[in-house]
Structures are given as structure tokens and as C-alpha cells.
């Protein structure tokens, strides 16, 4: 790259990262602001941190969101992994084209459409079967449906790059298909399973629109509460919440990355040791 072009590109890149991170940094800084006005700095204080931690409604909503996200992440990872295998390993089955559409559509479908559609289904089911009542179950089902599609994409693209030779070797040595899956395939795609689980967890923890449609009057998740308070204007407590979310999410991602890296290095060392012994 000629010098001038590369300097220009570096400047663009720096601008892009500033665009991404400056808003988040300002939120963190102002969570320690004394003033109620989020835009005027009047001195360092942690009083909004205390207020948030004493805010019962916020804590209840956070707990509900966490429970839903946990259930969602586990079920969506199982469903999404099955779907990823179906797409990557079974090139021909009846209705495959419709199936790929069912996986792709939730990725881009505007949430207001999915929201009203899911709600109308739950109301119809409730009228016919008496189940599900609006609340935890309906929110979890709606979240699972669209986050499973995301997990499927993660798993499908991992399996597309998968080296089948190790599976074939295990089969040649007499392992049954289920044993191969359990001892070879799943451990090898474990980082993608973790990534899919984390993605599903985050999508659920963060979802507002779909949740607002299907939640009913009794349940309030964290994004619902944040939205209703943000509509009234900026508030320092939301800045504190933002700081906590950014810290936890950042730590989880960096931690997961570090663990996966370590596991890969360990595997490489084992493989090297094995070849040396042979």
C-alpha cells in the first residue's frame, strides 16, 4: 500500500472505532457524575450506583431477564445445533429449501412483525388449549425461536469447515455414530457451541420489541423497564446499568475467548506429543 493511502485508511479505521466506542465510554464516565443531568459534569460520585442497587423493580426485572435468558440459551443451543447439523450434513431431504428459509428469515425479519405474529399465535393457543398463559413461557418460546436461528448459522458455518477425516477414522475403528458424535464431533465444535450459547443468551437478555408483544401485563423484563424509563428522558441510573452490562459482557467475551484459546493450545500440544510418541 502506498504511504498516503494507508495513512488515510488508518484514519478511517480510527474514526470507525471512535464512532463505535466513544458513546459507550461517555455513558460509563457519566455514570460517576454527581449531577442528575447526564450531560453536565459536576463532580465524581457513586451515588447513582447506590440508587440502582436499591432499585427493587430494576433488580426484579434483571432477575427475570436472567432466568429467561438462561432457559433460552440452553434450549436454543440444542435446537439451533440440530438445525445446523441438518443444514450442513444433510444436503437432500424433503422440504429442505423451506427449512433454509425458516432459518434465514428470523435473522432479518423486523421484530415488530415477529412480535405481533407470535402474540397472535399464543392468544390463539391459549383460547384453544388453555396454554400458554402470557408471561415467562411465552417470552421464552418467542426468544428461543429466533435465537435458535442464530445458533444454527454459527453451527452450520463451523460444520462447513469441519474436517470429516477424524470422524471417518473413528468409524473405521468401530465407533458407533452416536459415540462419534459424543466423543469426536461435539468436542471439536465446542467453541462454536459456547459462542452460540453466549449469542442466544445475549439476544434474549437484550430483546425489547418481541418481548413487549408477548409478555402480557404481569411480567416486566429488564429491557422493558429500561425502555419505559428511557422514554421519559436520560437518567443516571441507566448509565450505571449500562456500565454494568458493558463490563459483564466484555469480561464474558474476553474470558470465553481466552478459555477457547487455551483449550486449542492444549489440544495442539497433545497432538504434537502424540505425533512425537508415534
Amino acid at each position, binding site marked *: 500500500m502506498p504511504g498516503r493511502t494507508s495513512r488515510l485508511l488508518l484514519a478511517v479505521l480510527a474514526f470507525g472505532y471512535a464512532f463505535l466506542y466513544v458513546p459507550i465510554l461517555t*455513558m460509563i464516565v457519566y455514570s460517576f457524575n454527581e449531577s442528575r443531568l447526564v450531560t453536565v459534569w459536576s463532580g465524581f460520585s457513586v451515588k447513582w450506583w447506590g440508587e440502582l442497587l436499591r432499585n427493587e423493580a430494576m433488580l426484579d426485572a434483571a432477575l427475570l431477564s436472567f432466568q429467561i435468558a438462561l432457559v433460552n440459551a440452553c434450549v436454543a443451543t440444542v435446537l439451533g445445533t440440530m438445525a445446523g447439523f441438518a443444514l450442513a450434513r444433510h444436503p437432500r431431504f424433503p422440504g429442505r429449501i423451506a427449512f433454509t428459509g425458516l432459518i434465514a428469515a428470523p435473522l432479518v425479519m423486523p421484530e415488530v412483525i415477529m412480535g405481533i405474529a407470535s402474540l397472535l399465535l399464543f392468544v390463539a393457543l391459549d383460547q384453544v388449549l388453555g396454554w400458554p398463559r402470557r408471561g415467562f413461557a411465552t417470552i421464552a418460546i418467542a426468544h428461543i425461536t429466533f435465537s435458535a436461528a442464530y445458533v444454527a448459522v454459527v453451527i452450520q458455518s463451523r460444520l462447513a469447515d469441519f474436517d470429516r477425516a477424524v470422524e471417518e477414522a473413528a468409524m473405521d475403528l468401530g465407533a458407533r455414530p452416536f459415540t*462419534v458424535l459424543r466423543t469426536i464431533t461435539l468436542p471439536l465444535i465446542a467453541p462454536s457451541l459456547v459462542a452460540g450459547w453466549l449469542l442466544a443468551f445475549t439476544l434474549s437478555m437484550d430483546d425489547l420489541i418481541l418481548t413487549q408483544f408477548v409478555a402480557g401485563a404481569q411480567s416486566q423484563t429488564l429491557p422493558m423497564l429500561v425502555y419505559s424509563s428511557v422514554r421519559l428522558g436520560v437518567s443516571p441510573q441507566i448509565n450505571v446499568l*449500562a456500565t454494568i452490562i458493558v463490563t459483564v459482557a466484555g469480561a464474558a467475551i474476553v474470558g470465553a475467548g481466552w478459555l477457547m484459546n487455551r483449550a486449542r493450545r492444549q489440544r495442539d500440544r497433545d497432538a504434537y506429543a502424540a505425533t512425537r510418541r508415534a
Partner: protein
Amino acid sequence: MSATARTVARGAPWGRAATILVPYLWLLLFFAAPFAIVAAISLGDYTPDTVPPVTLTWSGKAYALLVGDALYAAAYLNSLRIAAIATIVTLLIGYPMAYTIARAPAGWRGPLLMAVILPFWTSFLIRIYAWMGILSENGLLNQVLRGSGLVDDPGTLLGTEWAIYLGIAYAYLPFMVLPLYASLEKMDAALLEAAADLGARPWTAFRTVTLPLSLPGIVGGCLLVFIPAVGEFVIPDLLGGTGTLMIGKVLWDEFFSNGDWPMASAVAMAMLVVLVAPIVLFQRARARDLAGR
């Protein structure tokens, strides 16, 4: 394929059936079937005194209103326009970033890309909220503008369409950068060297070699931004003014403020009709991309 490979590919017969059927049935029941119900409700009558506030008929009154009231057409067109402009803004920011990351030393690419994705893992709502503070009358942007002495009275971006473009570009940037990066990274650097050897200037080489080869990434990224942006609700609601007319907001208000389920359903059906072509295009592009590997 050897006999063992075939067995591996098939897996146990019941395992194979379950792997396909369980997610298939789930998505049919909870993602596809609801659209039939939306269609049925959209044809019904709004009856505020019943629970739920719908009486199933074939009257199609909601559609008559949808066509008759110019407000709806204006909201659809406005949403398409805003989503299109925002997509272009996102592309203009995302392309140079993806290009630079793809040209970076191999060891840097992973961390640089990770840094683009990282904000996506924090709350969407809270990232939009951050812009409310920055763009407000006394927010960071205006403080900087006033402090620089260039502008005395910068006015307020919050509540304008520009705030919506900014919000969409900010929230959807990772969805633009990832497909662009994937197509740019695959590109063979030798092609550019060949173009340069044949006397092409950098800009010509970019225009005639890089840009066409990255077209799949451009299409994929733009669709990933454009389709959800058309139905976006949170961004126009929090960053746009009260007068902002976008179809996602219209649907939301019909449902939550007016409680008119048939009208909200009709708005959703019409939005679906508008978005079917780009969604099919998106699915095709994805299938081609996976087949190409």
C-alpha cells in the same frame, strides 16, 4: 465418498430424523404458523368490546383503510427511504473499515474484527440511549461544536432524521462489516499486483478489481442492514422526533395505543409483502455463500 464417510454423513437413522424434524417442527409452529393467524386477523373486524378485540370475518376493512388513508402509504415510503439512506451511510463507514482490516497483518485481523463486534454484545437499547445523551441540546456533540468555536448555535440533531440514520448506522455496523470483510479477505492480493503491473492506478484497480469482487459482501451486508431497518421501532422512537413517520412505529402504535389488532396485522402483512423480495434475495445470497466454501 467411502462407505464409512456415507455412514458418518447419515448418522443413525433415528438421529438423522430427529435432527431435522425437531427444529423444523418448532420453526413451523412458532415462526411460520403465526403468519397464517396474522393473515386471518388482518381480515377481521376491530371490536373494542371483546377480548381479544377482534371478530373474525372476511370484511378486510383494515386493508380498505390501509389503502384509503394516505398516512400508511407515506409511512411505508418514508421507512423505505430512511432505511435506504441509512444503509448507504452504514456502507460508507463499514466498507473502508472492512477493507483496512482485511489488508492488516494477519495477526491483527482477528482482534480488529473482534473490536467491531464487541459493542454488539452489549445492550442494543442502551447503545441507542447513549446517543440520546450525545445528540441532545447540551450533549457531548454540541459541547464539542461550541467549544471548538466553529459553531455558536449548532441546533439539535436529536429528533431529526439525521439522528435516525446515525442510530441505524451505529447499531447495525457489525452486520455490514462482517460480510464485507469475509468477501474482501478471500480476495487474492495477486490480482491487485497484476492490475498494478499492467499500469492500473490504485483507484482504477480498486474500481475494476476490488469493488466487483466484493460485491457479494456488499449485497449481503446491505440486506442485513436494510431489511430490519425498514421495520425498525426503537431507533425512530428514541432518536427521531414525534413527527417521524416509520411503519414499525405505526404498527406499534396501532397495537399498543389503539389496541386495533386487525389494523396492526394488516400493516404487518403489507410490510411482509414489501420485504419478501429482499428476504428471498438474502436467503439466496446466504445459500450461495455457503455452497461456495
